[in-house]
């Protein structure tokens, strides 16, 4: 213990107004197991993140590995020497990737050669007992196995400093034990390695070499566990921790003692008989049977993912059972039975009250939903506020409460309607020991005084010991049921934990770990030579990200389908749907003359392909009505004596009524009508010389260039390709970075040597490839379905498209690097790209007709430039000589977007 693992001086860290760390000064010894203990939210995670360089420092100074962690150069050098495993089960893993692929990715990030990776992975898997499952997706591992895999990922580069943030929370006791044994063996082999661990399990911490107890962003005490217990004069660390708390916190603590259950009444509130739940092939709950007597406290003990929550959900009717049956109050469970629901209270695992409502409003809402009469409801709300000591915070939002208070609030809500049965799913995880004990006092009171049956799940052994009976659960199966003392006695052990481990071993749950070979220890620092690098930019790391992202996309059918098929479906709908060829317009005539001349004139309408004739109009009122109802879009009114006036040269007036509700259509109809009338008059002049107008003074020859038949499909289809390649690739990449922020795997970017540009470009490449594939499909369907060929230079189109999707995916990355949630990223990307791509790109209105801000907006987005290329190569028969300026513009956009995204993405979390 010569060198310190980390020296922390006067470090303060705030989230908004909240102090996570309050002027902390601490020297964590090196070369040993150093632990940070304390409940959730006391600043342990923040401190670890600061030490590892993952989070940006606000105030103070931290030295780790002999350098200042505020200096970017020291951090850059440290990424390869520090391993950081974030909190949460498998938070830094990629759930769809297999065990091997996860490890392989980390190996690539640290620049290991293939041979090196294969050797390391084989060895780590062997050491952790994961070697039988290299191909299993990480998401399908049990909690214990996930944590082992996370640890392997952290160890693959042989770090000097290992930082573990609550690595065993929610893991079953056997896996926990194996986890620590693994760490011990690693340390025995590499005594110089320093380990810093945060944990909420006090039992675990007793075996560490050194501890710092934290509360409220401050260090309560530090030293060897034995010293700490001795100075507090307690024989467990849990008790010592409570004793060390500031007096005002400690005052609230009362020792929990459970009065024995009065067993006068032996009717059962809850009965499960061979209850089974399967999700596809996966059997989450396997033939679970138990009976819970009225007034009993029945505990469910087991690790995360062992089927506790699923069983509880089946008992509340939230999930239908695959097989077996459940009975509540002696009646078969019926999800639709409102009467039974009134007798049950449920508290789910995570906080599940409305954050936007105050404490009081939450209570009131639930009182009303349980149809408590108004007075009774008010009475109960007041009672709950008092009983659970929430009166002072009645008008605060639940988010402002401490974790312990929130748990009390949830319990208050769950019992507001005085249920006879209370189902509580891990109500105390993450809560500090004082609050946990006070929560238990409430439960005991409910059970013993009010006769409420309590069914509770937990992974704390000391809580399980307080239950009347417990059921040990593992991998969907019940291992044993009975009073805690009996279970301990049955296995001849001294503690419940040992007994549980014994039961687990009987069940043969986990494969024993193979001994460590010496290969890992001998593997020296990774070779850095012979690798493609430009100014520190590493193609290997870029490729690691590309490969990983590609695998993830391929295993997410919804995203892949969205990427490939939605452009196609949208193009088909738009291709058919958006057309400016106004045809088949229903019209009717109001012929008040019915002479030969009027019929001749009207024939020129009925002969037109633009119009479809409806039955004749017989009155002015009829004309009005049919236009109003939208039945006809056009009415032609011929005045009486039209024929006579025409022959006598009196210029009769023909009135044409157009439905102006849709202006574009109305204008087009007017054009048609004028054209038809001109043609009629011209025909007349050649036939009857008498009333002939003078011959045309001037002939006008209209050439619709690029599109002789003037069909909108030739303009719309290239436009739609532009639109699709603007929207879909951008939305895909917009989600890609944010997703990692949400799932937590962004920690790997922050804690490894990968650079920002390597990370972003690596992510971008698979989407560029998908977009190009999607483009190929679009072009193919443009040609085959719509008959729109590429008349100009296909090569220019291909180059342009490549640059364009690079730019649009870059735009998505840009949004993604700033935004925090997936939804916001999707909608912001969609809104920002739709407006210029639809309105100002030339799709609907030529850019030359736009003015002012519209034009500026159009030109500052790649869509308008690519529209030139798309329509130019498809319809205008253009090539590189005409379109090179647009290609250059797209290249500039790519550089600008990717560059801005790189600047926007911070290596450290702030």
């Amino acid at each position, binding site marked *: 213990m010569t060198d310190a693992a980390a020296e922390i001086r006067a470090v303060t860290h705030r989230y908004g107004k909240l102090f996570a760390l309050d002027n902390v000064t601490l020297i964590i010894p090196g070369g040993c197991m150093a632990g940070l203990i304390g409940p959730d939210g006391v600043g342990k995670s923040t401190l670890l993140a600061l030490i590892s360089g993952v989070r940006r420092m606000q105030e103070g100074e931290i030295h780790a590995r002999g350098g200042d962690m505020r200096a970017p150069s020291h951090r850059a050098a440290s990424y390869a020497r520090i391993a950081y495993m974030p909190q949460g089960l498998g938070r830094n893993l990629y759930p769809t990737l297999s065990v091997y692929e996860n490890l392989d990715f980390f190996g690539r990030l640290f620049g290991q050669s293939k041979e090196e990776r294969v050797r390391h992975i084989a060895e780590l898997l062997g050491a952790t007992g994961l070697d039988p499952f290299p191909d299993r997706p990480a998401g399908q591992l049990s909690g214990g196995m996930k944590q082992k895999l996370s640890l392997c990922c952290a160890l693959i580069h042989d770090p000097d400093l290992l930082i573990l943030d609550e690595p065993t929370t929610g893991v079953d006791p056997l896996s926990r034990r194996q986890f620590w044994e693994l760490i011990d063996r690693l340390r025995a082999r590499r005594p110089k390695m320093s380990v810093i661990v945060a944990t909420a399990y006090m039992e675990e911490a007793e075996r560490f070499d050194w501890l710092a107890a934290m509360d409220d962003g401050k260090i309560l005490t530090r030293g060897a566990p034995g010293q700490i217990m001795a100075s507090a004069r307690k024989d467990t660390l849990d008790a010592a921790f409570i004793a060390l708390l500031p007096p005002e916190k400690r005052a609230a603590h009362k020792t929990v003692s459970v009065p024995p259950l009065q067993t006068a009444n032996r009717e059962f509130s809850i009965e499960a008989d061979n209850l089974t739940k399967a999700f596809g092939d996966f059997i989450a709950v396997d033939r679970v049977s138990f009976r819970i007597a009225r007034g009993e406290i029945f505990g469910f003990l087991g690790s995360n993912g062992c089927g506790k929550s699923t069983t509880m959900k089946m008992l509340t009717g939230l999930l239908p059972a695959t097989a077996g049956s459940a009975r509540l109050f002696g009646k078969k469970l019926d999800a639709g039975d409102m009467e039974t629901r009134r007798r049950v209270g*449920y508290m*789910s695992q*995570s*906080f599940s009250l*409305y954050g*936007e409502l105050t404490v009081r*409003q939450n209570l009131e*809402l639930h009182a009303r*939903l*349980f149809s408590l009469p108004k007075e009774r409801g008010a009475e109960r709300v007041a009672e709950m506020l008092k009983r659970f000591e929430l009166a002072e915070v009645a008008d605060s939002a639940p988010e402002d409460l401490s974790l312990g208070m929130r748990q009390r609030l949830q319990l208050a809500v769950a019992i507001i309607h005085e249920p006879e049965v209370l189902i509580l799913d891990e109500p105390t995880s993450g809560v500090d020991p004082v609050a946990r004990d006070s929560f238990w006092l409430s439960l005991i009171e409910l059970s013993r005084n009010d006769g409420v049956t309590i069914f509770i799940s937990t992974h704390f052994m000391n809580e399980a010991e307080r239950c009347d009976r417990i059921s040990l659960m593992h991998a969907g199966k019940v291992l044993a049921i009975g009073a805690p003392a009996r279970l301990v006695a049955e296995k001849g052990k001294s503690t419940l934990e040992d007994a549980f481990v014994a039961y687990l071993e009987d069940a043969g749950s986990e494969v024993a770990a193979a001994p460590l070979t010496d290969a890992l220890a001998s593997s020296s620092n990774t070779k850095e030579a012979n690798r493609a690098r430009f100014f520190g930019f590493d193609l290997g790391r870029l490729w690691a990200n590309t490969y990983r992202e590609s695998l993830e996309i391929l295993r997410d059918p919804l995203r892949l389908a969205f990427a490939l098929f939605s452009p196609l479906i*949208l193009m088909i*709908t738009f291709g*058919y749907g958006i057309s*400016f060829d*106004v*045809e088949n317009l229903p019209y009717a005539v109001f012929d008040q003359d019915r002479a030969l001349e009027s019929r001749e004139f009207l024939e020129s309408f009925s002969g037109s392909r633009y119009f479809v004739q409806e039955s004749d109009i017989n009155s002015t009122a009829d004309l009005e009505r049919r236009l*109003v109802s939208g039945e006809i*879009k056009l009415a032609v009114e011929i005045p009486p004596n039209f024929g006579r006036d025409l022959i006598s*040269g009196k*210029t*009769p007036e*023909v009135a*044409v009524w157009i*439905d*102006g*509700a849709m*202006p*574009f*259509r*109305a*204008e087009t109809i007017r*054009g048609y009508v*004028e*054209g038809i*009338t001109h043609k009629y*008059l011209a025909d*007349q002049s050649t036939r009857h010389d008498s009333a002939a107008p*003078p*011959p*045309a003074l*001037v*002939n006008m020859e*209209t*050439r619709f*260039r690029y*599109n002789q038949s*003037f069909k909108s499909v030739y*303009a719309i289809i*290239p436009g739609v390709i532009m639109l699709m390649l603007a929207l879909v690739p951008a939305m895909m990449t917009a*989600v890609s970075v944010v997703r990692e922020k949400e799932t937590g795997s962004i920690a790997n970017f922050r804690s490894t040597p990968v650079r920002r540009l390597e990370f972003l470009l690596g992510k971008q490449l698979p989407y560029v490839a998908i977009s190009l594939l999607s483009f190929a499909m679009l072009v193919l369907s443009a040609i085959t379905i719509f008959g729109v060929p590429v008349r100009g230079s296909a090569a220019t189109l291909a180059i342009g498209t490549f640059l364009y999707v690079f730019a649009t995916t870059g735009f998505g990355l840009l949004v993604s690097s700033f935004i925090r949630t997936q*939804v*916001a*990223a*999707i909608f912001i990307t969609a809104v920002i790209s739709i407006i210029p791509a639809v*309105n100002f790109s*030339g799709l609907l*209105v030529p850019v*030359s*007709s736009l003015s002012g801000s519209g034009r500026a907006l159009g030109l500052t987005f790649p869509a308008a430039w690519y529209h030139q290329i798309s329509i130019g190569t498809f319809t205008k028969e253009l090539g590189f000589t*005409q379109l090179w300026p647009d290609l250059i513009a797209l290249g500039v956009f790519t550089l600008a977007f990717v560059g801005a995204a790189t600047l926007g993405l911070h290596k450290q979390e702030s």
Partner: protein
Amino acid sequence: MRLALPKAWYLVIKEFRSLWADPVLLALIVYVFTFAIYSISTGISFEVEHASVAIVDDDHSELSRRIAGALLEPHFRPAVVIDARDVDGAMDSGRFVFVIEFPPNFEADVLADKGPTIQVNVDGTAPTLAGNGNVYLQSIISREVASFVNRDSGAVHQPINLVTRAKFNPNYRSVWFTAVMQIINNISILSIILTGAALIREREHGTIEHLLVMPVTPIEIMLSKIIANGFVIICAAVLSLFLVVQGVLHVPITGSIGLFIFGAILFEFSVTALGILIATYVNTMGQFGLLSVPVIVILYLLSGGVTPLETMPIWLQNIMRFTPNTQFVSFAQATLYRGAGFEIVWPQLAALVAIGMVTLLICLLRFRKVVSST
């Protein structure tokens, strides 16, 4: 006797509070019903506006200059004279949508009654502008030539006096159309996003499970979301109709606004149900976003609110008739522009109710299964 308010009512109040506590969504509502309506209505139009015209004048006569001078805003930008050699390049680059070429001796030939030919090149890839713009150009040229020739001999005699009148919108103003269509579009975007997001948020936070173990039925949960979000959106839409569309954009509304609001409520019902339906097919907000964007885009572009319904193939028209947007667009065009009454638009209203009911029924069938499988 005292009647207890239905439980759904308390859920509605809860929904209001949730919405009120979300400043981003509130800002979104305000934005789309004010700024977005204004900028889109005034920003894009399918009218012939600011069309760019070039002239190749090999005649340099008074007549050719006179025709060029007759091309006026707002329909045309001032004509630019270019060289015959530059025609291809100018059109290739999209600088001009129209290029008019006057032949040599044009004016002399007109006066000599030889009927010379003017060539009008139109960029056929500009579908909204090319067709109608060409009609305008032709009539301007004819008029100018005729008045030039007849300036001494009086007016031209036309055998028929054709009077065309656009009912309901005599000046073909597209802002009248776009503004109201944007309101409809925004109603549907917001309804889908707000209700869908409200449901998924409850699922992600686990509060929906909480509701389902209480004596609350799925239909109460769904209706509370429909009522609360619908009410807010309808109020915003009506305010926008009065303040932005009538007030700022000066769009005259001839029909019954009461009837429109009634229809809007039915539309709101069916489109919020659609939002819930989409939400039952996905697990996370991210997936919801990916799925809802194409749905929104299709509803927007193919409802008849952007391009006329008649231009679509019959099969597509028939499919789109099953969407609430198509029904409501046709209802809104009839009531607001053409002043149609209930006796004319009741089929659309009935269709909206039917679509909403069916959608809600499907949601109900999927609800419990989907909610609990996360």
